[in-house]
């Protein structure tokens, strides 16, 4: 008897240990039923909660602003459900793993259309067409934007954080030397020599904290030199990546990198962090910085009183061969609905608010986050830096007129995209020729094209 009692005790302890190891909830996805307790002690009616996982790796202030002022505002509107935004480190890895296991958040955020495309093909995302129609998303977004989220004609993801690549420059240094922002590639190349002759670094740049930064410059030179039509033709399989115009563009970029026109030398470029190259631009050690518009919200910190210098900055579209303005489009993230959600309509209602001019206006004016590609009025952009307002205005106009190019991280399939920035360094190290590099890219791209892995490419106008 004594033995049996001990046996039972041990069994109970073992069971409790095992129970403590089990996940707290097996419900999938992470939707919850939250209820409250009334003053009388009775449980109130359960209110559904839908979840979204946000990456905590970026600017913490921007993230908190978004949670408080966009998600928080939505929850205050007295909806029949609440939204819970959970900051997570490496949220994309967590999302991908959880969704593959049948769970994950109700609202799925991916790092770009090519990632959403893969998930949609695997049946992990909900088709959004009925909600797009019901909530009028097609009227709200810029015409090209929603096409990026389509797979086999159905809408699966909504683009957020519209990005482009521009040429920042130190306005004060330019004025002191009598330089003018370049419009053509020839003017740019001539200016690079003039800046070097003045003892300054022509282009502030570095990839120490973000190795894929190489593809920013690749996107710039290929689109702005070979032209967006050629890039479109190659992306749609009409011409190969070994085309002489691409070779010329890559050659020009290589010469600049190997001559030390980016940050002084290649080894310095490889070991310079983004804060360091922006400081070099702000202090006037460098004159220009071809980079993304994601710096628009913070670049001001490197100029003027905040940075203990008396310099000012401005931007222009990166030059093109013929001098016409061109904006190479990119998408920073996409939003979708988990195919396994219990609350598809509620999730769509939240997305409708999240992508509304009201929420996107808060996003850009209060949180400094790049907006989604939607129509925003001047009034809704009130209070932001005029240079940033000008960018939004010019970008919308250019996109409507077809003056847009294609960034690698948005429109290239994943293997080709990684190849672009991994292998280009081997060209700079003279381990691979430009011809072999482009042939390798073309071979890989054709494989991915054949496998149907190319994200939707907005057509030319």
């Amino acid at each position, binding site marked *: 008897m004594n033995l049996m009692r001990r046996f039972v005790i041990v069994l109970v302890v073992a069971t409790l240990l095992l129970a403590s190891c089990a996940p707290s909830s097996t419900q999938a996805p992470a939707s919850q039923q939250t209820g409250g307790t009334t003053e009388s002690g009775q449980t109130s009616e359960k209110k559904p909660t839908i979840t979204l996982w946000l990456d905590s790796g970026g600017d913490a202030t921007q993230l908190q602003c978004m949670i408080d002022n966009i998600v928080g505002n939505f929850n205050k509107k007295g909806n029949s459900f609440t939204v819970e935004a959970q900051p997570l480190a490496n949220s994309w890895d967590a999302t991908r793993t959880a969704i593959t296991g049948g769970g994950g958040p109700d609202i799925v955020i991916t790092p770009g259309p090519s990632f959403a495309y893969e998930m949609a093909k695997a049946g992990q995302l909900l088709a959004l067409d009925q909600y797009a129609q019901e909530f009028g998303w097609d009227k709200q977004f810029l015409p090209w934007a929603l096409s990026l989220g389509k797979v086999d004609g159905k809408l699966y993801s909504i683009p957020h954080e519209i990005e482009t690549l521009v040429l920042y420059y130190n306005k004060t240094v330019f004025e002191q030397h009598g330089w003018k922002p370049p419009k053509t590639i020839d003017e740019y190349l001539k200016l690079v020599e003039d800046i070097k002759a003045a003892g300054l670094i022509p282009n502030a740049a570095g990839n120490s904290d973000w*190795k894929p930064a190489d593809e920013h410059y690749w996107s710039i030179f290929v689109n702005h030199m070979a032209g967006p039509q050629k890039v479109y033709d190659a992306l749609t399989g009409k011409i190969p990546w070994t085309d002489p115009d691409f070779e010329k563009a890559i050659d020009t970029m290589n010469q600049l990198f190997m001559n030390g026109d980016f940050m002084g030398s290649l080894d310095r470029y490889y070991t310079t962090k983004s804060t360091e190259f922006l400081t070099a631009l702000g202090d006037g050690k460098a004159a220009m910085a071809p980079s993304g518009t994601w710096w628009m919200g913070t670049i001001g910190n490197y100029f003027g009183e905040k940075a203990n210098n008396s310099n000012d900055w401005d931007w222009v579209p990166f030059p093109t061969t013929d001098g016409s303005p061109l904006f190479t489009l990119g998408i920073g993230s996409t939003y979708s609905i988990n195919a396994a959600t219990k609350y598809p309509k509620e999730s769509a209602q939240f997305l409708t608010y999240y992508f509304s001019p009201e929420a996107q206006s808060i996003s850009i004016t209060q949180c400094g986050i790049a907006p989604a590609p939607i129509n925003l009025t001047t009034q809704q952009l009130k209070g932001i830096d005029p240079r940033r307002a000008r960018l939004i205005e010019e970008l919308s106009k250019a996109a409507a007129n077809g003056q847009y190019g294609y960034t690698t991280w948005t429109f290239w399939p994943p293997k080709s995209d990684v190849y672009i920035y991994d292998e280009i360094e081997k060209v700079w190290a003279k381990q691979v020729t430009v011809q072999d590099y482009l042939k390798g890219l073309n071979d890989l791209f054709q494989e991915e094209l054949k496998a149907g892995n190319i994200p939707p490419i907005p057509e030319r106008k």
Partner: protein
Amino acid sequence: MGTLIKKDLSSPTRPKITKQFFYRKVIPVLFVLPILLIHMTVVLGPSISSIYFSLTEWNGIGPAKFIGLANFQKITTDRQYIHAFQNNLIWLLFFLTIPIAMALIAASLIAPLKKGGLFFRAILFIPYILPSVITASIWKDLLHIDIGLGGVAARLGMPFLNIAYFGRTDTALLAAAFVDNWHWWGFLMVLFLTAMQSVPQELYDAAKIDGANRWNEFIHVTLPGIRPTLVFMLLMTGIWSFLAFDYVWITTQGGPAGASELLSILVFKNAFQRFNAGYAAAIGLTMSFFAGIIIGIFQILRKRGWEI
């Protein structure tokens, strides 16, 4: 047709669960059971599944397609894999020599100290307990061109030392290995020191009577005395060298131009950047295979009578 044998369960010959049997057999199993289940869930399960996924074409998101040994065939012609494997061999050679030598020298110098031994032991051990992200980030700045130690050296008249160690194809791998070693060798030193302190003093006294100097003592008394620890750490260093990831990822991410790419970096890039999770699983399995070879060599040597 087999013969149905009906057992009489009430038979007095039925084995009885004795108290001794319960304590010796059942209780230990029950205590081990939770960790065994956890281990099976988080180690054995994924290990077996990675064998399966290595035989598939899988993007890490959707369903996997069985392709047999195609991933392993691809490995044999993959230039990146061969280059990363060569880098792993350099890494292995580095860690089997430099930190082991440093730790042995430091331990043999600290071992005879009557006072201050604990201080040196603590100081040299501290880097080991610092998180890799902190150590690597600090050294990234310390080895930065102009603003790091190279800049200081240049100001002291040694400009040839002012280079971007993590930005050059000829120095990036060794610079990352240097940073990893900075945190690692203190740990080895403490292990060797502990082993040295268990070598009987009489052996040193006898060696001195025989006319041995410090070097002779080290070769003929210290090294044989700590051989089990030394060999075990050589074995573990060999295995860990194939798993090295964090210091390289934080300092160079395998660059520039793949100069510091290790197999583990290749696994990460394939699994999480190129949507090539099946191929990544195959590379991961080859890493386990190489670790298995090292263990196998040690087992063979042990069976042949080597005292290791």
